[in-house]
């Protein structure tokens, strides 16, 4: 972990909000290869945010054998829907402590929503598609935001207190890291993470096999 910290070169530019009630921080996450790192969850511990902004329902869709989005943040008690947009069934499950569930083979919207009651990171998988993997970041912290595909995160908080800590979680990191930050005016915080982003849900060979199977199978329907 120290190593990770040491590697990180933090350009601590704290952007101060003009509004006295609220502040925001823009962060750009890049990996070791200099490319943006998506699907990192950033939180500002000790800061509060507009909880209204957090919906009580969330959706992790399954499109083309992928969980979309790959990472979701929810507050405890949030119902998460796992709709099935594919033509195959999916068997969605999680063995993560406190939030384990199992949605056996289902189509479309057959599955009931899953309520994630406990804070924690729930790892979600599909039993019949090994490459499918999703994380549900269950946290009371309303500041939690997920970096987009360009590695950008837009953090917001309420109150006048400036955040001093920034916590970062990413599937490819062993555990969360916390960074000390200082408020810098209106700048995008550039953070380099000691990871190289690779999409874990890519299952090419499997898809190829499936295509082949489709071609040479009798239609049972």
């Amino acid at each position, binding site marked *: 972990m120290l190593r990770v910290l040491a590697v990180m070169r933090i350009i601590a530019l704290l952007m101060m909000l003009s509004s006295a009630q609220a502040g925001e921080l823009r962060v750009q996450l890049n990996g070791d290869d200099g490319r943006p790192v998506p699907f990192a969850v950033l939180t500002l511990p000790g800061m509060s945010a507009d909880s209204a902004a957090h919906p009580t329902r969330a959706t992790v869709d399954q499109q083309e054998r992928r969980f979309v989005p790959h990472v979701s943040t929810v507050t405890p008690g949030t119902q998460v829907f796992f709709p099935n947009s594919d033509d195959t069934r999916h068997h969605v499950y999680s063995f993560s402590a406190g939030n*384990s569930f199992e949605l056996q083979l289902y189509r479309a919207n057959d599955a009931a929503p899953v309520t994630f009651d406990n804070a924690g990171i729930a*790892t979600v*998988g599909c*039993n019949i598609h090994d490459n499918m993997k999703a994380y549900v970041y269950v946290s009371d912290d309303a500041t939690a935001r997920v970096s987009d595909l360009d590695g950008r995160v837009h953090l917001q908080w309420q109150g006048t207190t400036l955040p001093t800590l920034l916590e970062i979680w990413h*599937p490819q990191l062993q555990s969360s890291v916390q960074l000390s930050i200082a408020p810098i005016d209106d700048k995008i915080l550039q953070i380099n993470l000691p990871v190289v982003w690779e999409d874990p849900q890519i299952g090419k060979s499997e898809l190829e096999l499936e295509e082949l199977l489709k071609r040479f199978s009798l239609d049972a329907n």
Partner: protein
Amino acid sequence: MRTSFRNKLLLLIVGLLAVTLSTSLLAVLRASSHAVENIVREELQVVERVFRALLQDDREQLRNRAQLLAGDFAFKQAIATGEKATIVSVLANHGERINADFVVMLSSTGDILLSTHNIDRLPANVLETAQGPATTARAMLTLFNDQAYQLVLVPVLAPDLLGWVGLGTAVDQAMLNELRNITNADITLVASISGNVSAVVQSTLADGLTLDGGDRQQTDDVAAQLADSLATQSWLSRKVVLLEDDGQQLIAVLSQSLEQALASYEPLRQQMVIIGFVALFLAGITALVIARSVTQPIYQLVNAARRIADGNYSRRVNLRAGEEFGQLADTLNLMQDTVSEREARIRYQAQHDMLTKLPNREYIYSAFNTRMAENPQRDQFAMGLLELANLQQLTDLYGSEFSDTILQQMAERIIDSLRRGDMAARVADSQILLFFDDLTHDGVAVVIEKLQEDFASPVLINGIPVRLEPLIGFVFAPQHGRKFEELLRRAQIALANARATSSGYSFYQIGQDETHLRQITVAHRLQTAVEGKHFNIVFQPKYDLRAHDVLQVEALMRWTDDELGEVYPDEFIPVAEQTGIITEISMIMIKQVIEQICAWRRGGLNLAVCVNLSGTDILKTDFVRHTVASLHESGLDPASMVMEVTETMMMTDMKMALANIKLFEDAGIQLAIDDFGSGFSSLVQLKTLPVQELKIDKSLVLRLDQDTDDQQIVRSTIEMAHYLGLKVVAEGVENKASLQLLQQMGCDAVQGFYVARPMTAAALESWLGDLPTNVRAIRDADVFSV
């Protein structure tokens, strides 16, 4: 030692082949051994690859099975429960599904959570694998508790890494046996085991072949030790390092028996050995056949050569062999013929006289012996020794070539007159020996007649008619002897006798040979007697009828030989004359006589001594001069010696005899004619000879009193001698009547037993001193007659 050609050839061919065969066999054996070794070595390389591939495959299968297992949702679900009992249960259950011997559960960070075996920590290789990215399963070979395992580590993903499940199958005896069945090589696993040592942990080798202890520190050493141990039993080994890690070493020793591999070559070897022996056998036979084809003719030729060497030329050498031996045989035949011819010629020459073509002495000798040996019972035959009486004359007249021709002609005539079974041989220059089988004394007249008939007609040589006058001496077997030499010698005697006959032939008389032999002995002993001067002189008084006194004595030789006893001059003088030794005897006598006369003179006895000289002596001027000189040196009156000589002897060379007698006469020595009336007596000579005395031979005197013829001769002789002025002495007067007759006839002196026998000098002296009565009575008788 001489090695036979056959053995040499045998040795050469079989030896060469044996060397070649054994060399090639050895080369093949070595090559096959080498090849097999290489093949086994290469095989072991292949075995290693196969072995590694099999292990790899095994692991892959294990991994696949393990992956399927780890993908099982229920498995994951169970693991995810985190309940130890559940996890143990599910691991056991799923482990059982894939027949795992070893199950281990690791945390996502690699800590051991559960294990079927008591292990403190994971081997480094396993650990590294566990800490790597957790996407796929890992298969490896590893050691746990001295046991090798095929281990697969599979991540449990749900879908994130929950932990690792390790499933292992022991590399046990069954597995090694299976591998052995596939690769056909024995596999021995050497591993580092607990306690910091290494040892053989598994092996498919028979118990006797593996290492018993093996507690070296390094697996390498144990593997090398095992390989060495196997090498001593003709095994090839290959070391395959399966695991080389910190604290973990695993080596597989792959081994194959060379003997087993070579076993497939055994029939080939046996065949080669059999082929070798068959080839050797055939080569031996071939060598023997070749050797025989060479040695057989050689033996035949050798035998033929030996036969020829032994003088047997009768058989031809006949060879059924190659050209070379045929040529040799022909040459041998040619040689045999040549040798045979030459030998016949040489033998003929050795056995024959080349001039007359008659057999020679040796031939007739052996023929005679053969005849005697073949027919000893038929011992009656005759032998005649023939010579030509007039051959010497003819040779003198016409030369030796002429006489050679005569001999040839004579031989031809003899051959013509021979009967069947008779033989003729030239045994001496002019002598031919004739052998008449079955001829006895009774039948010899016919043979003589025929021979004389054959020689009767003269032969014409160089236009000269020559009459051949054969002389033959005959001997008859068995009465004249049985041995060739004996018979020939006696035939010589007979021939000698024949020379004196008019008939021209003579038969041997028994005893002639003995006389002849005694003469030879006498001649031989005489030599010794002369050297040792073994002669004595006796003196016989000569009574002078005029002076009635003994004025002269005749000196007579006496010789007593150790072997022959007393020998009389009648016997030994002729022999001495023949051999020529007479002169030496005479010189001895002269010397002794002179000494005796000197002795008598000193004693006052005045006697003249008559000495008999041989005709040979009188012809030797040296002797005569010597005698004269001796007498002169002695200082004696020359008249004290009278030399008696015979006419017969002088007649050989009268001129020389007269000259020598003249020498005596000149010296004043008196001479007497001895033995007058016995041989040739020539009155003409008597007239010319300067002699003073005539001695009438005793053959006329001995029976004078009875034989009137003798009386007439003696009377006439005395008268004639007196007429010539010679004194007459009669010898051999042995009785009174003869003496009186001689006295009446006017004989001058008498000598004989009636007067006195010959006596030694000493006896003579005493005889003269005391004359016997009859001697003294001679004077009285004379007185009476007057």
